């Protein structure tokens, strides 16, 4: 087990390395620099800016400098905002993480029971209800959900504010963004859990449990659920990745002051410094989270843990 963990941790390094090369190459392959779109700057100014940001060094030097900085945690400068990316991130990361964690918890706390109930009351009313909710989740892109929630609950009903995330000091501002972000994961998790539970219901060892005269509740909780939930852990990785990328849009629509919003802005502004740095940040976070999920999976499945 330990060997497995160590190998997986070490594996992240080459992966991120390749990601950095790809990111760097793409950004530098794009025609036009960070300053070419907006009002035409005089060439001399552009030259000056380039020199200042080290953009006139040979490519490999730029790359190595960049990677070197990344490794020590320096995300580099923003070309358009006059700040270091580190500052931008420091400002917003707390908020983004807060939003992400809340959405994750909501997805799991709602999604799993929904799936379990749907499977246990297969083809009856609770199942239809659970399926209905998950259907809405997969049919609605997060931006559509966000917009509709915004208009309906915020503008029309005025139950929640349209913006102004301040964390726990303004709880009602957290409701809609969290809900909008978790709609799709709830659907995915509940569908998957339901399928997994249904499969477990048909297994031979459930029949053995029945032949022992166990209570239905015991069979469901002790025999079925643990077996059904183990595969569910495997989709937590993609769910987390979704929460991270989905946060861009939600933060933009609800004006949540997190880093996702900046990412969207820098895409529009062609601020390559920010794009590259934040891409690396996201990739690293997702790689680490995937690692955690994989280790968790290996831990909770006895077949892997004791082999």
């Amino acid at each position: 087990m330990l060997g497995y963990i160590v190998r997986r941790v070490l594996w992240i390094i080459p992966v991120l390395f390749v990601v950095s090369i790809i990111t760097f190459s793409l950004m530098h392959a794009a025609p036009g620099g960070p300053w070419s779109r907006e009002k035409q700057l005089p060439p001399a100014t552009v030259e000056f800016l380039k020199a200042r940001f080290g953009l006139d060094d040979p490519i490999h030097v730029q790359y190595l400098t960049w990677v070197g900085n990344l490794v020590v945690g320096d995300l580099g400068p923003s070309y358009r905002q006059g700040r270091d990316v580190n500052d931008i991130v420091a400002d917003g990361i707390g908020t983004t993480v807060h939003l992400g964690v809340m959405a994750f918890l909501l997805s799991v706390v709602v999604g799993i029971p929904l799936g379990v109930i749907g499977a246990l009351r297969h083809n009856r009313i609770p199942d239809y209800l659970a399926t209905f909710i998950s259907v809405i989740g997969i049919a609605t892109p997060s931006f559509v959900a966000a917009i509709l929630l915004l208009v309906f609950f915020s503008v029309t009903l005025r139950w929640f504010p349209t913006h102004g995330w301040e964390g726990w000091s303004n709880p009602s501002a957290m409701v809609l963004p969290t809900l909008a972000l978790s709609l799709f994961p709830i659907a995915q998790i509940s569908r998957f859990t339901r399928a997994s539970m249904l499969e477990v219901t048909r297994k031979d060892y459930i029949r053995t449990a029945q032949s022992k005269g166990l209570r239905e509740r015991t069979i469901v909780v002790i025999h079925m659920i643990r077996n059904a939930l183990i595969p569910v852990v495997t989709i937590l990785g993609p769910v987390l990745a979704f929460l991270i990328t989905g946060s861009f849009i939600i933060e933009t629509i609800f004006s949540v002051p997190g880093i996702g919003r900046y990412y969207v802005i820098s895409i529009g502004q062609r601020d390559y410094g920010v794009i590259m740095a934040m891409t690396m940040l996201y990739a690293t976070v997702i790689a680490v989270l995937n690692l955690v999920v994989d280790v968790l999976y290996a831990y909770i499945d006895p077949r892997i843990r004791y082999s």
Partner: protein
Amino acid sequence: MTVSDDRGQAGSPTVTELPDAVTIETEEGRLLAERLADDTRHARRLLEVRNLSTHFFTRDGVVHAVDDVSFDLDYGETLGLVGESGCGKTVTALSITRLIASPPGQIVNGEIVFDGIDILKLSNEEMRLLRGRKIGFIFQDPMTSLNPTLPIGFQIAESARLHLGLSRKASDDRAADLLGKVGIPRAKERMGDYPHQFSGGMRQRVMIAIALACDPMLLLADEPTTALDVTIQAQILELIRSLSEEFRTAVILITHDLGIAAGMCNRINVMYAGRIVETGKVDDIFEQPKMPYAWGLLDSLPRLDEVKGARLRTIEGLPPDLINPGAECRFSPRCKYVHDRCRVEEPDLSPREGEGHLARCFGTEPGGWIK
């Protein structure tokens, strides 16, 4: 038969202490609750099955998996249910313990009296009290019949804790004890291991331990060795035999292998197409079978004194479709000795030579055409 002290804390739930506050709804249930208080025998026979019919209602029609089956079982006796795949032997066993999947299956008729209690009249909750406690089941495939995410010690101790009201420690001790009895070396250390850490044969031993955890009166063993290596088969069968003898547990052994049945059983029921076609003491069945299907089965066994290179003998044809069985003898399409009467009318089980020896065949009846 009583729960002896050397196996841990004796004692079974009394009427007022039923596990999980099962409410007693039926008359039979009240009777059951009293019976659970001790292990003495309350009836003439352990099991009396009368006219059991279990059907499956499918999109293509009603499958008569078990049709009008009747037999008895004495306390401590080993009975064999022999027949080929699909003849209804597993469904019979599942019907006895009422584990038939309820759509699409259903016990449509019959009476099953276990230790004097009419099982079919019990409520579901009451039936649950019997399962594991008085009736143990060994399933066919040890690879899939154990929960992969729970330690085997837990899986064995579970029913003891539930049905016998034992504490955690007492039930664990009992489980370790049983594990040793079924032949797992270093049993106490292996209590926390998981099924995938055991071989097939060892897993089946664990299944046996689970089935015997509460010292049941009846053990239903559904092809317990079919999925195992031949060398392991003998060990497992011997284990079942010796344990059932030691604890005076009655066994219904389901198998398609006559050799196994011969070695283990006191009596044998031969089943075909959902019916019992011959029944009797093991010696009678083997020495003087009175039904052409039984002959076919015996004949198809390869023998040590065979002429080398001779072809294996089979029974021609395939078993019938159980969806709309007609009124004729179900074996008639394949029978070498068939007469016109067989194609029109189905014989009843009628007596032959030997105590309790019955066969379902016109031809072998006294005055029939088969000698």
